[in-house]
C-alpha cells in the first residue's frame, strides 16, 4: 500500500525508509488498515518479527538485561528519530518529539551507566532519575513519568519475570496518566496503556518476559495505528502520533534485545552518534572556547574525548588517569562542564565567548545575566532561542535566559539550573513554547527556590509577560499581571512546510509558506510575507495598535522592514517595529497587541 502523496518525510538512508514510511503513515485509501498487521513489517531492521520458538526463553530478566533493553530501545529510537520528528501534525520545522525522547533516554542511560550495574531495581531507579532530570518537551516528560512508574514497581527487586514486567509497564502507564493534568487519548499515553494492558493479559498465559513483551509490542503497534481514529487532527494530517511512535520504537528495541535479534552497541558509541544540530546556524556563531582541567582517579581519557567530540569542535583531550586537560569549541559550554564534572573535579575553568557581538547571549548556563548590584530577590527566567531574542529578554529585565538546546526544548535539569543560576530567590519562569510548559511545571516541582510558571506558549506571549513584569511588586501579583498580559497578545509564526499534508482543511505543499495564529495553522501561500499579511488580518490587526516583527533565520532585517512598510501601508493606524530575533525555524514571529 503506497502512501498517497509521497513527500520528503524523512531522508534516512537505506531501503527501509519506504517501509518505515508505510508503518508510520496513514494510508488514506483505506480507513482502517495502515498496512494490515499480518503483513506490515514491524521491525525497522526490515525483518519479520521472529517466531515464538526463536525467542530466547528467559523466565526472568536481570539488571544487566534491563539495561541492555533500554540501550537497544534507545538505539532503535535514535535510528528513526527523524521519522518521529516528522510526525508533527503541523508540518513545522521544529518537530522535535523524536529528539526530545531520544535526549531523555540518553539522559536515562547516562545515569544507568553511572550506577555501574546492579539489579533491576537499581537500573530502573537510575533510568528513572536520569530521565527525570534530562526530560525535554512534553514527550520527554511523559516518558520520564512512565519510567518513574516502572521504577516504583520494580524497586527492590533483583530480577523481573513476565508478570512483573507487565505490572511495571502498567504502573508506568498509570503514573504517566496521573502526571498529566488533562490526558489526551490518541497519544503516547494511549499506546503505553494499551501495551501494558496486553502485557498483563499475556502474562496470564505466557511464561517468558520476551513473550510478554512481544504481546505488548503488538498491542502498542495496533494502538499506534489507531491513534488517528482518536485524534482527528492526526487523521487529517495523515500521521500517527509522534510520541506513540517513539514509545513503540523503545518497546520494539527492548524486545529485539530479548529475542536475540539485536545486541546493544557499546554505550559510548551510542553517545557519539551525532544528531544533526538543526538549531545551530553554521555560518554564524563561533561558540565558546571552553577549557578546563579535570582531576580524579582512573579518568577514562578516551571516553572523555569521545564525549567531548560530540559536543563541539577543535577537541583536545590529553592527560592520564589522574589529570586530564580538556579543550573544546562549543556552543554549549554548560553541557561540556556538566559532562566533565561527572568524571572528576574541575579546575581552572575558562569559557571565552568567541563571537564578541553575541557576548550577551550565552548558551548553556555558565553565565546568566545578573544585573550588577545586589542579588535581586525576584526575577524572571525566560526560555528563548535566538541571540536577538535573548538580548531582548535580558534588556527587558530577565535575570537569565535559558536557550532551547538541541531540540529547542530545555530539559528539566537545564531549567532548574537556569533558575538556580539566575541569582534570584523568587523566580517566574516563562517557557515560551507549548512543548516546554510541562517541563517548566516539572522544574517548579523540583526547584528548591520559590518558582512559579507563567505558561507562555510563544515568544510574543513571553515578551508581553516580560513587559508586564514589575520588580517593585510581589511574586503573585506579578504572576497575575504577566499571565493577563500574555493572554492579551496574538502570536503569529510564519515558516515553510517541511512536508505536504492536509491540516484544518488546508492543502499544504512541502516548501510552501505557512502561518500559525496562536499555535494553529491558518494560512498557506507562496511567500512568507504574503502569509504574514494574511494571518495579521485574521489576528484582527484592524482593531489593534502595536505590531512587533521578530526576524529569524531565513530572512534579513531588510525583509522585515519591507514587511513592516507593507503593514503600515495597509493598516496605517498600526505602530510596527522590527526586531532582529535570530530565532531558528521561524523566519517571522509577529506579535499583535
Amino acid at each position, binding site marked *: 500500500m503506497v502512501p498517497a502523496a509521497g513527500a520528503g518525510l524523512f531522508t534516512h538512508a537505506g531501503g527501509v525508509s519506504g517501509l518505515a514510511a508505510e508503518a508510520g503513515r496513514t494510508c488514506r485509501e483505506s480507513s482502517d488498515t495502515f498496512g494490515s498487521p499480518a503483513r506490515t513489517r514491524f521491525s525497522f531492521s526490515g525483518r519479520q518479527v521472529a517466531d515464538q520458538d526463536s525467542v530466547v526463553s528467559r523466565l526472568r530478566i536481570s539488571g544487566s538485561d534491563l539495561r541492555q533493553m533500554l540501550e537497544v530501545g534507545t538505539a532503535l529510537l535514535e535510528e528513526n528519530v527523524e521519522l518521529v520528528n516528522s510526525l508533527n501534525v503541523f508540518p513545522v520545522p521544529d518537530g522535535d518529539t523524536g529528539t526530545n525522547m531520544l535526549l531523555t533516554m540518553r539522559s536515562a542511560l547516562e545515569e544507568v551507566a553511572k550506577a555501574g550495574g546492579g539489579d533491576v531495581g537499581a537500573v530502573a531507579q537510575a533510568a528513572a532519575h536520569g530521565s527525570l532530570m534530562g526530560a525535554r518537551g512534553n514527550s520527554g516528560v511523559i516518558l520520564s513519568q512512565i519510567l518513574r512508574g516502572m521504577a516504583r514497581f520494580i524497586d527492590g527487586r533483583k530480577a523481573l519475570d513476565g508478570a512483573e514486567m507487565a505490572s511495571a509497564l502498567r504502573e508506568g502507564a498509570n503514573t504517566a496518566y496521573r502526571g498529566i493534568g488533562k490526558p489526551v487519548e490518541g497519544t503516547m499515553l494511549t499506546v503505553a496503556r494499551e501495551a501494558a494492558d496486553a502485557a498483563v493479559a499475556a502474562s496470564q498465559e505466557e511464561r517468558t518476559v520476551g513473550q510478554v513483551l512481544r504481546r505488548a509490542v503488538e498491542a502498542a503497534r495496533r494502538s499506534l495505528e489507531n491513534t488517528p481514529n482518536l485524534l482527528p487532527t492526526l487523521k487529517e494530517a495523515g500521521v500517527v502520533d509522534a510520541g506513540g511512535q517513539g514509545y513503540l520504537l523503545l518497546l520494539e528495541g527492548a524486545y529485539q534485545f530479548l529475542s536475540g535479534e539485536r545486541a546493544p552497541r557499546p554505550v559510548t558509541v551510542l553517545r557519539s552518534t551525532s544528531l544533526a544540530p538543526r538549531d545551530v546556524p553554521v555560518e554564524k556563531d563561533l561558540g565558546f572556547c571552553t577549557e578546563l582541567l579535570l582531576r580524579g582517579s582512573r579518568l577514562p581519557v578516551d571516553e572523555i574525548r569521545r564525549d567531548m567530540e560530540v559536543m563541539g569542535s577543535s577537541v583536545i583531550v590529553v592527560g592520564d588517569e589522574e589529570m586530564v586537560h580538556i579543550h573544546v569549541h562549543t556552543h554549549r559550554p554548560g553541557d561540556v562542564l556538566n559532562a566533565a564534572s561527572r568524571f572528576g573535579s574541575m579546575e581552572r575553568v575558562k569559557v571565552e565567548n568567541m563571537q564578541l557581538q553575541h557576548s550577551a547571549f550565552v548558551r548553556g548556563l555558565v553565565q546568566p545575566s545578573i*544585573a550588577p548590584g545586589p542579588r535581586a530577590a525576584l526575577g524572571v527566567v525566560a526560555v528563548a532561542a535566538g541571540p536577538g531574542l535573548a538580548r*531582548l529578554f535580558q534588556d527587558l*529585565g530577565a535575570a537569565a535566559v535559558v536557550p532551547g538546546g538541541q531540540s529547542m526544548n530545555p530539559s528539566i535539569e537545564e531549567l532548574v539550573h537556569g533558575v538556580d543560576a539566575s541569582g534570584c530567590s523568587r523566580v517566574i519562569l516563562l517557557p515560551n513554547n507549548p512543548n516546554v510548559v510541562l517541563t517548566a511545571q516539572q522544574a517548579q516541582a523540583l526547584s528548591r527556590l520559590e518558582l512559579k510558571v507563567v505558561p507562555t506558549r510563544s515568544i510574543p506571549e513571553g*515578551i508581553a509577560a516580560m*513587559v508586564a513584569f*514589575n*520588580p517593585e511588586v510581589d511574586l503573585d501579583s506579578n504572576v497575575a499581571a504577566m499571565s493577563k498580559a500574555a493572554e492579551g497578545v496574538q502570536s503569529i509564526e510564519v515558516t515553510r512546510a517541511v512536508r505536504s499534508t492536509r491540516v484544518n482543511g488546508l492543502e499544504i505543499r512541502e516548501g510552501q509558506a505557512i502561518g500559525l495564529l496562536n499555535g494553529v495553522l491558518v494560512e498557506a501561500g507562496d511567500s512568507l510575507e504574503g502569509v504574514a499579511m494574511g494571518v495579521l488580518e485574521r489576528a484582527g490587526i484592524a482593531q489593534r495598535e*502595536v505590531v512587533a516583527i521578530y526576524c529569524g533565520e531565513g530572512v534579513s532585517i531588510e525583509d522585515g522592514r519591507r514587511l513592516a512598510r507593507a503593514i503600515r501601508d495597509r493598516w496605517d493606524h498600526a505602530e510596527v*517595529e522590527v526586531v532582529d530575533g535570530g530565532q531558528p525555524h521561524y523566519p517571522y514571529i509577529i506579535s499583535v*497587541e
Partner: protein
Amino acid sequence: MPGGTCLACRAGSGGGVSRIRVVTDSTADFDETEARRLGVGIVPLNVHWNGETYQDKVELGIDEFYRKLREEKGTPRTSQPSVGQFETAYRELLEESEGVISIHISSKLSGTVNSARFAAQAVAPERIAVIDSLTTSYGLGNVVMRVARLAEGGASLAECVALAEELVPRIRVVAAVDTLEFLRRGGRIGRAQAFAGNLLSIKLVFQVFGGEVVPVDRVRTRASAVKRVAEAVLDMGEAEDLAVLYGDDPEPAKQLAAILTERLKGVGFQQGRIGAVLGTHTGPGVFGVALLLRR
C-alpha cells in the same frame, strides 16, 4: 523680556500693598487669568534649541514648541532660571509686599529651587520662603493657586508656608509617555531606566513621587496606557480636584477624561496642556493627571 524679570510682577496685585506675594516658575500650569488677577509672579526657565535660547512661555509658547518639535530637527534642552533672575524678581516684589513665598518644580527634576534659595539668601532670607513642591505642572500650579488665594485674603508668610507644606504631600501626578527617548535624553528617567527596556513600542506609565519620576508600569499600547493611568488615579484615594493634561495629542487625554468623569463625580475637573520645559523631557505624546488628594 531681556534680563528675565518675572511676568505678573508688572501686572501688580489686586489692590495696594499685599502682605505676601507668591512666586513660581514657568513649569507651573494653572488658570492664567486667575493667576494674573492674584498677581502670581512667574520666573521663566529656558529652552535651548539649535543655538537659540527662549524663555519658556514668554518667548516660546506651547503651540509653537510642539510645532517646532514636530517639524524641526535638533533636540531642545532646558535650564533653570539664574540666581539673578530670582534676585530681581524678589527685590521687585518686596518693594510692595511684606514677604514672598516662592514655590517651585521638584528639586529632583530641576535646579530651579537652588537658584531660588541662593537668591532668597542674598536678598532677604527672613522675608522669603522657598518651597520645593516635589512636583510640577498642574500639581505645582494647584499648590501655587491655593496659596495665592490664601495670601490674597491677607495671610501671613508663616500661614502661607504652613498651607504649602500641608498641600505638597497631597499632590499626585500620574502620566504616560509613548516613548522613553525624551526622558532618557533629558536625564530625568531615574529608576524608570532599568525598568524601561529597549522595545520601541513600550510606553511608560509613571508617577511623580517623592519629587522624581517613579515607574508604575510599562505597557505596549496607548489604549493600555490610558487604562493604566486611569486605574492608578482611581487607586490613589479620594481626590479633591484634578486636572487632565496632555502635550501635543489630545486624544488619549480625552479618553482618560471620559473614564474619570464617569467614575469620579463631584470632583473638580480641569483640562490643560503641558508646556515646553516639561514637554522637552517627556515628548509630545505625554498625557496624564495631576490631582490633590482630600485631606
